């Protein structure tokens, strides 16, 4: 399976019924394709809407209806729009049950870096710092390594997005949970051994008993 699809299908199992969720751009956006049967989630886009849907048919695009990346979307029945202050009251005020964000690095304490690489890439933090500060649960969805280098490191070498540790890290190899005792290896990807995960991880992992294989959400027909 494509590693990005695997990550998105595992993250989808973290969705809870009747909650508000914000998906970051890139990989996290894929999670919306795998919402489990019987679960109803409202997705927020921080540019000012709850309850958006797939892009409209060709020629039906509305220049006033876009996602945070500026792409055309549709609005589902019951959707609501609002200004940037309200959008970030929802985010910072603890009204968001969960956010899923991409990552450049996560360290042994569960801190995330995802907004700049000094001297190379300076896109800016956009809403990421507010999301990590304010969402009830912060889930990082990222590849376990980049160009052979571990992205899960003993200590961040990139500027942190927030001091607060994230709730869960889902990669193409493993599911990791930052705990006060350390980074707990909760699950392995299908067909991946604990030794392979340890070898691909820069930070020390907490391994307790048998590590189960990760479940993934079924791909829906639509």
């Amino acid at each position, binding site marked *: 399976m494509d590693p990005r699809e695997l990550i998105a299908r595992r993250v989808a199992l973290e969705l809870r019924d009747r909650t508000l969720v914000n998906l970051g751009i890139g990989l996290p956006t894929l999670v919306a394709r795998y919402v489990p049967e019987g679960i109803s989630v409202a997705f927020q886009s921080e540019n000012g809407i709850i309850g958006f849907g797939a892009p409209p048919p060709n020629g039906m695009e509305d220049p006033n209806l876009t996602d945070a990346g500026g792409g055309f979307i549709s609005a589902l029945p019951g959707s609501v729009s609002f200004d940037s202050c309200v959008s970030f009251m929802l985010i910072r005020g603890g009204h968001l049950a969960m956010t899923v964000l991409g990552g450049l690095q996560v360290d042994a304490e569960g801190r995330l870096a995802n907004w700049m690489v000094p001297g190379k890439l300076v896109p*800016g933090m956009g809403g990421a710092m507010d999301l990590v500060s304010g969402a009830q649960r912060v889930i990082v969805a990222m590849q376990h390594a980049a160009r052979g280098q571990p992205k899960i490191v003993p200590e961040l070498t990139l500027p942190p997005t927030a001091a607060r540790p994230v709730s869960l890290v889902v990669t193409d190899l493993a599911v990791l949970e930052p705990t006060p005792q350390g980074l707990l290896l909760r699950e392995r990807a299908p067909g991946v051994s604990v030794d392979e995960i340890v070898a691909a991880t820069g930070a020390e992992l907490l391994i307790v008993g048998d590590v189960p294989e990760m479940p993934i959400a079924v791909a829906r027909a639509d």
Partner: protein
Amino acid sequence: MRHAISSQKAAELIPDGASIMFGGFMGVGSPDRIFDALVARGARGLTVIGNDTARPGVGVGKLIDAGCVVRAIVSHIGTNPVTQKKMIAGEIDVDLTPQGTLAERIRAAGAGLGGILTPTGVGTVVAEGKQVIEVEGRQYLLELPLRADFALLHAHESDYNCNLTYRLTATNFNPVMAFAADCVIAEANEIVPVGVIPPDAVRTPGVLVHHLVERPQ
């Protein structure tokens, strides 16, 4: 009741070196006609305050392309390689600000507050040089109010009294910026008679708007 002004006139009101807040998120809900007129006027030395610098040729990206901007206070420049290039070349200063903090700093200025306390940015480079204040055991950054000389807004409708409405995700920073500048200039998709917009639908009271740009003829 006031008369609308041309976008050229609006651009003449904004002197070189001014600070301008602009509505828009990736160019959606941005005052494009005023931007076009500023480019045509050859404006220089502007400080722009908004969510992002959109893309080259889009929204405020037109001002960046044309060399009108020396400083940008924004949350994101990742979608505009021209901004990044000019930042590296030292032609534009970029102050990156978390998006929610940007909105609340503008709101503080518009609401007469001395600043806001936010947990966003604690323990990051955003906290450098800022006061950290502990309230009930939690740490917050003191973020100061952010005002501008001009706010340039894009609305859906305006009536003759400049009461404004917005549409969907084109709303974004427009309503809050209407409170936080010395001179507020709006352009609207539609200009309608007084009474057409129901009172509950008005998002920006016309008393805040100094000038409305006329519709293209």
